[in-house]
């Protein structure tokens, strides 16, 4: 049944900008402060106050827009969006309506089939966040006799980023949201913490018969606080709408809530038309005017973005698409990787060590790669010692916990020497091989009689006596040479 339908999905993402202060006043922009500790007459909407735009908030919004390939408007303005609800102290929200900061962007996702797909971005605009309500006497609005308001969040700078309806599945929508967050984090303009609400995602979903170009009635879904929830909520909603249409029902334009516990969407409210917000230009804030030169200056200051890194890692470093995606996911990890490669290390082993043992250690200890004593230079040196067979991979693995947890006094080479972990080769190794062979005459006889599988036994004995320091290939060669002579 579902295969006869096509879903059309668009996302509206609100991201809180990681500024020190709010968008129009000097109050701190911090999550988790004591209720109403971060308020002042401006963000409480007291009479006679004047909002003044935070320069950093504007800068962050412009950077985000440029990284999303948007066109920045040479002139944009703020508007008042009117609605009456206690989370809004002024009874209007300062937002942008008909002249947003930026329009016409795109980003690229990878579909489940591994194809690149471009998702359009309709617009990006700036606005202020609203406060938070606590409904007393009930965990729900309907049952409470009064409500408590915390305005710490009122006036936190937001970017609203609206996509084109270019996505066709829950997985594509989740991939879009993930790539968007990755870009914002690369820029350092939003921490992207969905649990704390610094990145919030509203989804519009409609379905239509395959081949039809007419859009179905769209339903908005809210309240998803993970990428996984976005995917599941959309897939649930597609099934619900298809089933309703198949049953001859009409889809109602409404807002639905994703319920994590029951894994379904439920009706929240029937949607108001946008004209009900009675937008008008914000008289207290003159227009934002940006020159081409200013915009270019911002553009040239953008860091290398995830997609560029992924492409470069495949072209220059020979990583495959999967590996490139993995290591470019987090900017600090990607930069660590690049710094290791810059020491002359081979990209592939560098990738394996970072995404393997090092990532495991970071996850286990809830640390970021920038928070450990191990430097890219030290890892690069360790990889060099493996490459020139000064140490074995096994020794390196034994060495790593110390490098990850303790600052390195000298070089990795010094540490290897101090611990006596250097690979054993040459005369020293030959002596031990001879010793092993001489002390196992029975096995030597069996080997020479054709039981060549015993080679492993001899190698094991040598490793035991050298505590794993014997260079494996040389050990093999030496034993064979001695047994077969």
């Amino acid at each position, binding site marked *: 049944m579902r295969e006869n339908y096509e879903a059309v999905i668009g996302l509206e993402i609100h991201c809180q900008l990681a500024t*020190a202060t709010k968008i129009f006043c000097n109050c701190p922009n911090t999550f988790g402060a004591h209720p109403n500790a971060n308020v002042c007459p401006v963000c409480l909407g007291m009479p006679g106050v004047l909002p*003044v735009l935070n320069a*950093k908030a504007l800068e962050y919004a412009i950077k985000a827009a440029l990284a999303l390939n948007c066109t920045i408007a040479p002139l944009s303005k703020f508007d008042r969006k009117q609605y009456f609800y206690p989370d809004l102290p002024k009874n209007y929200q300062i937002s942008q309506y008909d002249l947003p900061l930026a329009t016409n962007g795109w980003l690229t996702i990878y579909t489940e089939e591994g194809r690149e797909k471009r998702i359009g971005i309709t617009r990006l605009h700036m606005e202020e966040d609203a406060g938070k309500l606590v409904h007393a006497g009930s965990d729900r609005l309907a049952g409470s006799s*009064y409500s408590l308001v915390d305005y710490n969040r009122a006036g936190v700078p937001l970017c609203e980023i609206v996509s084109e309806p270019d996505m066709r599945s829950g997985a594509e929508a989740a991939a879009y949201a993930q790539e968007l967050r990755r870009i914002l984090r690369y820029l350092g303009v939003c921490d992207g913490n969905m649990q704390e609400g610094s990145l919030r995602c509203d989804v519009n979903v409609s379905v239509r018969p395959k081949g039809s170009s007419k859009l179905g009635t769209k339903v908005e879904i809210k309240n998803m606080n993970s990428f996984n929830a976005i995917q599941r909520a959309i897939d649930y909603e597609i099934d619900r709408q298809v089933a309703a249409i198949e049953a001859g029902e009409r889809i109602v334009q409404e807002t639905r809530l994703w319920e994590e516990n029951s894994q379904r969407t439920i009706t929240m409210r029937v949607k108001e038309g946008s004209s009900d917000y009675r937008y008008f230009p914000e008289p207290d804030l003159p227009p934002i*005017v940006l020159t081409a030169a200013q915009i270019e200056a911002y553009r040239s200051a953008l860091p290398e973005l995830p997609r560029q890194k992924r492409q470069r890692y495949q072209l220059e470093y020979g990583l495959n698409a999967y590996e490139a995606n993995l290591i470019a996911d987090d900017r600090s990890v990607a930069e660590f990787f690049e710094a290791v490669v810059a020491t002359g290390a081979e990209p592939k082993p560098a990738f394996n060590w970072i995404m393997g043992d090092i990532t495991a250690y970071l996850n286990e200890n809830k640390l970021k790669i920038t928070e450990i004593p191990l430097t890219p230079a030290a890892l690069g040196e360790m990889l060099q010692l493996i490459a020139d067979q000064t140490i074995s991979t096994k020794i390196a693995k034994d060495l790593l916990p110390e490098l990850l947890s303790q600052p390195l006094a000298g070089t990795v080479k010094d540490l290897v020497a101090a611990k006596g972990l250097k690979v054993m080769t040459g005369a020293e190794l030959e002596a031990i091989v001879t010793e092993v062979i001489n002390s196992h005459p029975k096995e030597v006889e069996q080997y020479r009689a054709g039981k060549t599988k015993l080679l492993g036994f001899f190698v094991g004995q040598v490793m035991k006596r050298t505590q794993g320091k014997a260079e494996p290939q040389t050990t093999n060669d030496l034993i064979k040479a001695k047994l077969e002579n």
Partner: protein
Amino acid sequence: MIDRAQVAHVANLARLQLAEAEVEIFAKQLNDILQYVEQLNQLDPQLEGVEPTTRAIEGTIPTRPDAIRQMVDPEALLNCAAAREDTFFRVPQILG
């Protein structure tokens, strides 16, 4: 023309309760205001080629540095409220 239905709709959005007679009065007053502003349309020929504006004063948006500075004690602001509970603002029942 603003009709009674529009007045009632806007009043509803603004959470205003109007008596029937008031709807009548406001519809008339709002129409008078619109007609007054409408006179500007007589200037149309002179305004040919003039860009619409949203404000009377020229200029672009001033910005401030992103530095924390709280001038007023939040406690004093909470005390301005009609009702408070701990450090929350307390508001009446939202949905009846």
